[in-house]
């Protein structure tokens, strides 16, 4: 169904950028604060560069988010028509959060050299808080889809709408926490990975070490906390969405004293290729070896999600998450014992890969939860196929989005790499930003017809 594919694709693209919007400001705050309070030019330099990168990512993140608001209506009239007023509140609050972010990012970027330094770095705090609130609001909607609340369906009509109850439903706390922490994992590993690559190429200065350590520290805290949060969330899923958990755990039949299955696929109705660890399945799902783990047989066949996709995505996420937790633990333990793993090329290569893997984990997690909720868009109440638009134009918009976002990805990579290269070549070249002032005052010299924002042709 093109509506579903288009939505999945736009969401998948946007979520990476949204993670940067949510988690990057906190990291910039740390280095900027260090730069100001400890008079550390390396930290200050990192803050300046990171803020410019954040500005570019924020710009394309914001437009892809705007597209999502359009898509909510264009692709899902069957959801927004009946339920738009039920879930409008968190979206409205997210809009306010985004507005605050946009305002403060503009002021922050303009503030370099204009604001007193001690005021300047504190502007990152509202940005980070707004990111937190925005994450909560969006996850509130998704949690509502998994655990609908705040309304009643009477004779086919949606009535007794309570938007606060809908927003602060039972599922939101764990889902929000899981995503918010995931953002720090993604951004932490990705940014650390950039400096890891720099160190692999021989650039081994304080700039790179600090640029590695700060994001890696954030990612470490997140990576160690995440398995516990995920575990908690998984136990809630066992209660709320048994079919989803059954797909996660590849459980065809409801059973007590269930094993934990690693790997394997559902082929012709049977689980094949798995490795079983006895009793752990029940224990993880219910904190008891005798606990009951729901199986796919607990719901009728037409209410079951696509099992293998859900399962693969889930295990990919858990696998990467577990390895990440171990990975960071090894680094800090080694450091505590006096071994600097930053000297190990193998370690640096793994860190370079960790950013991409964290991204894969985020996408896999979203695929697991969204596909696992199928065939429902509102769990137990509205099926996806009933909510989707049946417009003939959907394939066109889907293809258009694919092409445009592919172009945006290429352009973003080109632009960011060119910025990095120009920084390397020009030392502390002060690049302009999308929201900040150019490197020179605009339009004063009337004799000059070249614009300050553009370079002269090269060569």
């Amino acid at each position, binding site marked *: 169904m093109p509506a579903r594919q288009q939505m999945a694709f736009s969401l998948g693209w946007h979520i990476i950028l949204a993670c940067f919007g949510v988690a990057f400001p906190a990291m910039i705050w740390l280095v900027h604060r260090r730069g100001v309070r400890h008079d550390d030019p390396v930290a200050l330099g990192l803050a300046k560069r990171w803020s410019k990168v954040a*500005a570019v990512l*924020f*710009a*394309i993140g*914001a*437009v892809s*988010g*705007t*597209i999502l*608001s*359009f898509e*909510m*209506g*264009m692709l899902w*009239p069957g959801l*927004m028509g009946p*339920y*738009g*007023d039920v879930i*409008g*509140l968190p*979206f*409205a609050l997210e*809009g306010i959060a*985004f507005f605050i972010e*946009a*305002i403060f*990012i*503009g*002021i922050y*970027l*303009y503030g370099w050299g204009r604001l007193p330094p001690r005021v300047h770095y504190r502007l990152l705090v509202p940005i980070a808080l707004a990111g937190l609130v925005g994450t909560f609001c969006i996850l509130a909607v998704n949690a509502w889809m998994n655990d609908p609340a705040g309304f009643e369906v009477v004779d086919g009509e949606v009535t007794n709408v309570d938007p606060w109850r809908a927003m602060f439903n039972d599922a939101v706390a764990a889902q929000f926490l899981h995503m918010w922490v995931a953002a720090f994992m993604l951004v932490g590993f990705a940014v650390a990975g950039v400096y890891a690559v720099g160190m692999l190429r021989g650039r081994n200065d304080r700039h790179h070490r600090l640029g590695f350590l700060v994001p890696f520290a954030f990612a470490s805290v997140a990576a160690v906390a995440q398995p516990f949060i995920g575990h908690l969330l998984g136990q809630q899923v066992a209660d709320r969405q048994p079919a989803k958990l059954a797909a996660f755990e590849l459980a065809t039949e409801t059973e007590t004293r269930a094993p934990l299955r690693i790997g394997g696929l559902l082929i012709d109705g049977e689980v094949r290729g798995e490795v079983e660890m006895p009793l752990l399945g029940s224990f993880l799902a219910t904190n008891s070896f005798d606990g009951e783990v729901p199986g796919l047989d607990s719901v009728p066949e037409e209410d079951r999600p696509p099992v293998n996709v859900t399962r693969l995505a889930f295990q990919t996420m858990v696998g990467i998450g577990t390895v990440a937790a171990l990975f960071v633990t090894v680094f800090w333990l080694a450091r505590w014992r006096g071994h600097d793993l930053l000297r190990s090329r193998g370690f640096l290569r793994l860190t370079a890969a960790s950013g991409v893997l964290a991204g894969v984990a985020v996408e896999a997690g979203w695929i697991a939860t969204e596909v696992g909720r199928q065939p429902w868009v509102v769990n137990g109440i509205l099926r996806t196929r009933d909510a989707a*638009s049946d417009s*003939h*134009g959907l394939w066109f918009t889907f293809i*258009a989005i694919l092409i*445009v976002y592919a172009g*945006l990805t290429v*352009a973003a990579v080109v*632009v960011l790499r*060119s*910025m990095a290269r120009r920084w390397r070549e020009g030392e502390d070249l002060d690049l*302009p930003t*999308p*929201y*900040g*002032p*150019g490197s020179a005052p*605009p*339009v004063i010299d*009337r004799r000059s*017809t070249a*614009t*300050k*924002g*553009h*370079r*002269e*042709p*090269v060569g």
Partner: protein
Amino acid sequence: MTLEATVAAVLFLGVLLYAVLGGADFGSGLWDLTAGDARRGGKVRALIDHSIGPVWEANHVWLIYVLVFLWTAFPRPFAAIMTTLFVPLAFAALGIVLRGAGFAFRKFAETVAEARLYGAFFAASSVVTPFFLGAVAGAVASGRVPADGSGDVWTSWTGPTSLIGGTLAVLTCAFLAATFLAAEAERAGDPELAESMARRAFVSGVVTGAVALVAVLVLETDAETLASGLHGRAAVLVIGSAVAGLRALWLLRAPAGTHGRGSGPCSPWPPSSSAGAWPSTRGCWSTRCASSTEPGLAPPSWLYWWCSRWRR
């Protein structure tokens, strides 16, 4: 005033804010597109970068606010609009993406050729989006969006009201942007550029006014309910809008240095005049809703929206 009317009022506030604040951003794109080649157009483009740079991101929020408010307060009409007007909304959305990305990437372009490429996307899409949003408004105002969303996806937004609505949207944005940019140029200390932008503002203002007059005629035949409202209670606002527009043109005509241009950094001239129809917009919907007894389903509610968009 009923709850629906109050909510509609708050919604129109968002539309207004988007139209005025976001409109200045969009219109800047048109001037960016027509500024000439890299050499001649450089100063204009730098002025645009400098002016809309800090705020263009935040101005997105008005659109999001309108969409969210719409689907929260009037979910059924929202779904109907999104279904019937799928095509223009898709183009408007595409424009928004390309515009934002183009603007951001251009700032970091390494060569003039790259800057030109990104700039072309930014500028072209700045024209596309207001046109299609205006067409959407026109479609709703001319009653071409049935309440169940079953309108024709092509003809619903290609009627006369839509086409003139889209055109008027682009022109209005251009007029608004040119006046703001002229004020910005003056504040940046470049009277020559300010003069040039003021000339553009004048021309675009005259054209906008002319098209608006044509629009009145179009509405008579194509959107009767709106037209009758504009004859009746909203006539005051129509006149108010015309007066404000003429005053803006008069001020733009005055040569540099006279007190009509205003003095100092906070010159109160054209921008306040062209935006001075804000009170008349608020009045527009309130008189319209006072004369309407319908409970607020798609056609009459959206006439309020169209009304506020038109009276610039």
